[in-house]
Each structure stands twice: as C-alpha cells, then as structure tokens.
C-alpha cells in the first residue's frame, strides 16, 4: 500500500476545467466541462493555474516558481501563506483542488 500520508498535498486543476486566455489580456476564463461553471480568473491567479496546469504542485513548489518579472500582481504575493490564501479562493470556485499525489 502506498503511504499517502508521506506525500505532500499538491494543487491540481479540478477535473473538467479548461483554461482559456488572450495574449493581450491579463484575465483568463476557467470553464468546467462537467459542471458548466464559468469563471473569470484575474491575475495573478491565472499565472498560478498556468504553472499548475503543467502538473500538480505544492504551495511551496508553486511559490518557488513565481517570478517577479511576471508583474505587479505576482510581486504582491510575498509569502507562502499569502499564496495559499489565493489558492484557497480558487478552490472555493471549484477551479483547483488539493490532493495527496506524487508529481508525474
């Protein structure tokens, strides 16, 4: 049996969520093909999702990937706790969820 307690909780996109954006706009949209829910995702949350879309990440791993060159909105995320709070907002919307899973 795998020891799931040993695996860190990682953020992933909720099943069915697709992300779309436009190169000249800071916002993106998240559409859930299963529920039909549609949300506008403001910066910097859409940048979080871009990273998470590559594969599940812990909050710490995501924090390490944020780059100040990504803009003012990202520079406002100064701590892991602050990032966790923003991710929790996305979780409430049903866009991301945490699970104990190893990275691909």
């Amino acid at each position, binding site marked *: 049996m795998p020891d799931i307690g040993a695996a860190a909780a990682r953020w992933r996109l909720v099943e069915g969520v697709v*992300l*779309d*954006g*436009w*190169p000249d*706009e800071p*916002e*993106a*949209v998240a*559409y859930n*093909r299963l529920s*039909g829910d*549609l*949300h*506008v*995702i403001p910066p910097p949350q*859409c940048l979080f*999702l*871009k990273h998470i*879309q590559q594969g599940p990440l812990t909050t710490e791993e995501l924090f390490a990937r944020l780059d100040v060159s990504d803009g003012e909105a990202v520079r406002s995320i100064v701590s892991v706790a602050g990032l966790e709070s923003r991710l929790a907002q996305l979780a409430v919307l049903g866009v991301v969820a945490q699970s104990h899973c190893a990275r691909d």
Partner: protein
Amino acid sequence: MNPHLNLKVGPFTVQVSSNIAVVLDGARLLYSDREIAPPDFVDFHISMARPSGLRGWWRPQVNFRLDGHAPFKPLPLSQALPMFEWGLNWCITSHCLDYLIIHAAVVEKNGQALVMPAPPGSGKSTLCAALVCNGWRLLSDELALLKLDGSGEVVPLARPVCLKNESVSLISGRFPQAQFGPVCNDTIKGDVAHMLAPADSVFRVEEAAKVQGVIFPRYIKGAETQLWLRSRAYTLLELAKQSFNFHVLGEQAYQVLRGVVDQSQCYDFHYSDLEQALQLFDELVDEVEPLTGQGDSQYVL
C-alpha cells in the same frame, strides 16, 4: 377551430389562433409579408383567448397558450398584442436548442454584425431602432440566435422592435418613415409600441451574418458618447450570463462564445445623444477589421 394564421418568423413557423380580432389583425400588421400557407410542421402552436367566466367580459382578460398550456397569468385584453410578442419570446427561449440564444439586439452593416447584450432599461432597443432606421439591417432586437456550428454567425429573426415610453415618440419623431403597431398603455413595462422591421431586413431574413463586435450599450442621461475596449474574458462571462440556454447546451455553447469573442472587438458604450451614437456606430463599422483565424488571437494557458 378559431381563426388562425401561420407565420414564418426567422427560422421558426408559428401558428396563431384566436377569436380576438386585435390579436390576428395586430400579428398581420407586425408581421406583414410573413404570413404563409399552412406548413407541414409548426414549431409553436399559440392560441390567445379570453378566459371563460366573468373575466372574459368584465374587465376582460386574455390568456396566452402554447399547445394548450397557459404558462402565464392572464393580462388585460388591451395588452393582447404585447402579450403575443412576449409570449413568442418565451416560446423561443424556452424550447429552442438549435441555437445559443443570448438576450441581445443584433444589427448588421457592410457584412459586420454587432451583438448588443444589455439588461432592460439600458436603451438597447432605442439604439437598435435608431440604427435600423439609419441604414443598419435588423437581425433581432431581443434574441440573438447564434449558430452552433462554429461559424460565429447569427441567424436573423427580424421581428418588431419593442419600444417603451418616451422612446416611442423619440423614434417616431426622428424617423417618420418608421412604422408602428398600436401603442399599448400601462403594461408592466409602461407604454409600449412595436416598430415594424424594415422591409429590407425582412427580405434578407434568411441571410445569416458573422459577428464582428460585441457592444454593451447603456443610456445615461447627460452622458458623453463614450466607447472603450472591454476585456474578452469578462465579455464571454457576461454573454454566458445573458444566455437563455448556455447551461443546457454545455461545452458546445462555451465553444460558440469562445469563438464569438475571439473574432470580435468587444466594447462598453455609454451614450445620451442618439445622433452622436449613430455617427459613432457608422464610424465603427468602417474601422472594425475582422480578425483572421481564431488561432491568431487564441492564447491557451
């Protein structure tokens, strides 16, 4: 069977039966040239009749029925014609899944269709009426029927434009060529009258048009005429909110809206001066250049 008439309204066939003269006469007036021979298939069988009993005669009322079912409470008999129009809106929005239906006006000029979603009271219908009296083609005042095939086209309805209160005299005074049905007073929306669709719009009712712009108009008394770009993301969200069947059609509807905002310029528009609004729209249709290929503007995270 009551007297009836069959109408071709955009892609729909409608049979209206009524023993109330104002209903059939009014429908013939509003949909002149749309009466057809009995078709093989009718989308909506509508009947309008006085209720049985006292309210059929004392302060008489009228019932709207679709296939014998009365979805609404009766209205005063004097409001029979507006009730027919509002009831037909309900028939289309509640039963048609062949299109993504948005609460929006749609007008077209030089092959460029503009979708104008807006809540009641925003001045959408007044602006729409002024535009179609000023050379724009009317596709719809109330319901945008977006094709589901990915073409980004709107199918015309070319139904009458419902104007309320001061807008009736404003449009009839500014555009004396406009033809109206009777004014109906003291409805839930105030005094209303329906402006007939221009003959050219009716003639071209089978000619779909590709959406090139999405504009959210808002009349604000005393406001300057202002037009500014709007986020595509928020435009997509608002179009979904203004849709009647987005949630029913699911991902197909999302892809339709995604395509529409990809191929469109999206704007917010505030106005109070109708002349300036008309001038700006004419300039806009000269400036809007269609984006080539959805892939060019698509950015997938």
